[in-house]
């Protein structure tokens, strides 16, 4: 059950109750009202954060608690903070009618095993050390996080997404409309969808990857893992693979209007002598990986560096 408190800055209550706690900050009459709240939390519980504008910075610590610090932006109505059972909620409330709202800065510490869900409109999101599931969404804010063993999903309209791998195999899904995405050394499965954003993936032990774009460019760098399944598709964006190390894979590439450039030797052939369409299928090395690339207009380039 949620109980909301309102208090003056001078008599700010701090309640700290295991398994049942609620705190809400004072109305932000003044600019930059500091936030300092903490509640006990399940080490594998879920933390939900909602902040329209400003920033959300999440780190982990060895305590079974969630701590929220930062400063409430001018015009914000207050902070809603509750921790019930395994769910901790942190929500910046904005008034129904407000002439101007400034961003709220939230700094959150939580148990590493927590799962995290963050929703913002323009607030940037940064998360580090989270090992549970992550659902990070923003309309125009940027998202930075690390990918661990659990599912990580990052979704924006125009915000840029940056994800760094930690060596653990999980599932990463990045969806943007126009935002760019940079993914580095993520093990496991990496899926991406964008309309006009540019996606650059530096492979870790990536066993499976499916990237799709309408006009954004798709770039893949690194070593193709044995048995990897890589599927890339773009309507008008270019697809570029800069591969490292020995390559053992079967390649299948086709483009309706784009050029296919292959540094491994075999050249693309026209699917029709007088009409558009090129394709190229070849095997390089002894491996069992499979790489499929399809475009309408985008150029395809596969090279080893």
């Amino acid at each position: 059950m949620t109980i909301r408190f309102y208090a003056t800055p001078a008599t700010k209550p701090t309640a700290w109750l295991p398994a049942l706690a609620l705190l809400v900050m004072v109305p932000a009459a003044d600019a930059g009202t500091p936030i300092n709240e903490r509640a006990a939390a399940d080490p594998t519980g879920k933390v939900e954060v909602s902040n329209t504008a400003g920033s959300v910075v999440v780190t982990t610590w060895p305590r079974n608690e969630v701590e929220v610090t930062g400063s409430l932006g001018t015009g914000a109505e207050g902070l809603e903070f509750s921790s019930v059972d395994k769910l901790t909620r942190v929500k910046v409330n904005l008034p129904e009618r407000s002439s101007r709202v400034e961003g709220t800065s939230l700094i959150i510490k939580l148990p590493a095993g927590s799962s995290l869900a963050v929703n913002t409109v323009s607030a940037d999101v940064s998360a580090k050390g989270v090992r549970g599931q992550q659902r990070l969404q923003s309309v125009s804010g940027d998202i930075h996080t690390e990918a661990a063993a659990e599912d990580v999903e990052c979704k924006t309209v125009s915000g840029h997404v940056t994800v760094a791998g930690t060596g653990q195999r999980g599932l990463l899904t990045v969806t943007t409309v126009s935002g760019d995405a940079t993914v580095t050394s993520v093990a496991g499965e990496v899926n991406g969808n964008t309309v006009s954003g540019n996606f650059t993936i530096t492979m870790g032990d990536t066993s499976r990857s499916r990237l799709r774009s309408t006009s954004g460019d798709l770039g893949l760098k690194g070593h193709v893992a044995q048995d990897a399944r890589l599927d890339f598709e773009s309507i008008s964006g270019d697809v570029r693979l800069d591969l490292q190390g020995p390559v053992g894979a079967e390649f299948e590439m086709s483009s309706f209007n784009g050029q296919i450039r292959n540094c491994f030797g075999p050249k693309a052939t026209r699917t029709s002598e007088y009409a558009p369409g090129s394709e190229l299928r070849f095997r390089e090395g002894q491996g069992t990986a499979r790489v499929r690339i399809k475009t309408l207009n985008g150029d395809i380039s596969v090279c080893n560096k």
Partner: protein
Amino acid sequence: MTPGRLDSAQRLDDALARLPGSIEPARDLWPAIEAQLEPRDVRAGRRWLWPAAAAAVLLVAGSSLITANLLRREDSAVARQLPASGRLTYAAAAFGPGQTLDPTYDAARQELARSLAARIERLPPDARQQLERNLAELRRASAEINAALELRPGDALLEELLLNTYQDELAVLASVDQLTGGNGAGTTTDPTRMQL
């Protein structure tokens, strides 16, 4: 005709009879022929096409998975027209010449667009412009692929790209629907007064 000449004539006839009627050309002539086959404007009769993987259209909030049933299209020109920028209006989704996507898909698309029309107004202006620009980009892409399919009907690459483009459009609509509603972010504030 003397017997010798009869024999000669008979042998010639026999030799002519043994000649093959069909001779295959040294190269494949079809691509050059196909490239010059002008499409016909087919308006007569009903033409139903069911792809091998036909299935019902699914729309789940946040889902990006659809498959297509292909139905007759009344007027290909209508489906190729892009709606005016800045408005979430959609013509029937074309799928190559003579076909459209299942009306269930179109209904879902229209419904989502209507639901989003109000929510999109709540987005900050920059984000709204980005979104509308990119939705227009998706529609432009589907129009381009449909135009290519007019020249190369049934092309597997084009059909796959087109289907995925429609999937992506629906996914974008669903994503924005999720981002702008039901999660508390930016929904409790009068967007006309919100400056971010």
